[in-house]
């Protein structure tokens, strides 16, 4: 504070006062802290502190800070407004028609808050004054490590067991419930296949030549593939994409792409 003492004498005291106030405001942890300090200056038991007087002290403090154009945090101003309100409530005779807490109730609560904060500070100091570990008393300096012997137990529930069993059994016995499609050639498959191939069939071709690869020899598969391909060819005839013919009973069935007029 002394390093810039070069400026005139007149305003030094003002400036020091201002600075003192700044320091003071900074030194308080919020309005409640400031109120507690102001309350203590009344030199009475906090329970008997005059809230009215306290409110006036606070408002005077804020007023002074404003004059000195010291920036006060919003909560200081909110508290000031609230205290002004409280002051008016305490001074005016109570309005019986008015709802809400009376001035006395509000004042009593503020007194309670101040007393509680003060009490917490006292016990905080008492707590810190206690013997502390690592300062006044000590724990074992060479703790012996406790060897952990890990024993693993396995567990399973009945449900796990049931599920596991069902899982193993699902692999075979349950399968027949699902359609076995391994040896089944569906009409949809045959249709897809035919649609892809008939474009090249400009002449009469034996239907059996359209059987998919690998389905021609195994009797089960050939039957399935033949049936599907035949049904598919009928479907394509129905839609006018193919013509189909059979020269004689049991003679090979032949198909041919139908000439469709363009457009």
């Amino acid at each position: 504070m002394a390093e810039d003492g070069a400026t005139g004498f007149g305003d030094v005291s003002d400036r020091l006062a201002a600075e003192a106030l700044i320091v003071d405001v900074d030194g308080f942890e919020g309005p409640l802290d400031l109120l507690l300090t102001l309350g203590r200056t009344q030199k009475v038991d906090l329970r008997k502190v005059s809230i009215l007087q306290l409110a006036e002290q606070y408002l005077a403090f804020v007023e002074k800070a404003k004059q000195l154009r010291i920036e006060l945090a919003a909560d200081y101003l909110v508290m000031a407004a609230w205290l002004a309100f409280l002051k008016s409530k305490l001074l005016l005779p109570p309005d019986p028609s008015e709802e809400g807490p009376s001035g006395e109730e509000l004042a009593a609560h503020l007194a309670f808050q101040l007393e509680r904060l003060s009490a917490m500070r006292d016990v905080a100091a008492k707590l810190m004054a206690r013997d502390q570990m690592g300062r006044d008393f000590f724990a074992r300096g060479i703790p012996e490590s406790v060897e952990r012997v890990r024993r693993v137990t396995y567990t399973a529930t009945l449900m796990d067991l049931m599920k596991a069993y069902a899982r193993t059994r699902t692999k075979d016995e349950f399968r027949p419930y699902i359609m076995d499609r391994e040896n089944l050639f569906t009409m949809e498959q045959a249709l897809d296949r035919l649609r892809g191939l008939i474009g090249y069939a400009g002449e009469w071709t034996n239907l059996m030549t359209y059987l998919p690869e690998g389905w021609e020899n195994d009797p089960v598969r050939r039957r399935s593939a033949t049936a599907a391909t035949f049904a598919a060819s009928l479907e394509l005839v129905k839609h006018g994409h193919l013509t189909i013919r059979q020269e004689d009973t049991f003679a090979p069935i032949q198909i041919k792409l139908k000439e469709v007029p363009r457009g």
Partner: protein
Amino acid sequence: MVDLPDDLEPVEESLFEAPPMGEQERMVEAILFASAEPVTVAELNARMPHGAEAAVALENLQKRYEGRGVELRKVGEAWAMRTASDLGFLMQKETVETRKLSRAAIETLAIVAYHQPVTRAEIEEIRGVSVSRGTVDQLLELEWIRFGRRRMTPGRPVTYVVTQDFLDHFGLESARDLPGLKELRAAGLLDSRPPPGMVGLGDGEDEADDSQDQDELFREEDTDE
């Protein structure tokens, strides 16, 4: 404490021969001596042979260590050996540089200890300023406070309570032994008193729930001791 031996009484007649009490005392002594951390009665029993009654052995041992350079101390639900406080002056060499706690942190710690379980909003209400995240974090990091149950009020805020480490550090047997606790309670300074005109905040059933919480915290110590 007193209940445990009763529970274990029939063990003496069991197939497992419990070691003689003198031997049990030695065991408790060895375990507590070797450990830097407090050890619970349950853990003592678990580590000692079947049929041992750690609670009884502890009592005997505590008498034996009375007035010695090392003491047997109860910390919450656990027991620990600590050097006698009057000999602290001999230990300069051991003294751990303790981190200086800020005034905010010290006050917050005290509020948690005396008002537990307490929410951040309540701490702020009591201190009249907002509590910075760092303050709470520091106390959590020191493991002096921990999260308690959530409060059953709107928003279900978390609460804070003090830990066994806290008790251990300040040489407290339980949170009930906090200095001045009875006086504060008698003066009504630990009541959660909502500001007049504010209804529904911390009222009614929530209030009941809270006091239950607190009761439980303090009762726990009562019954288990």
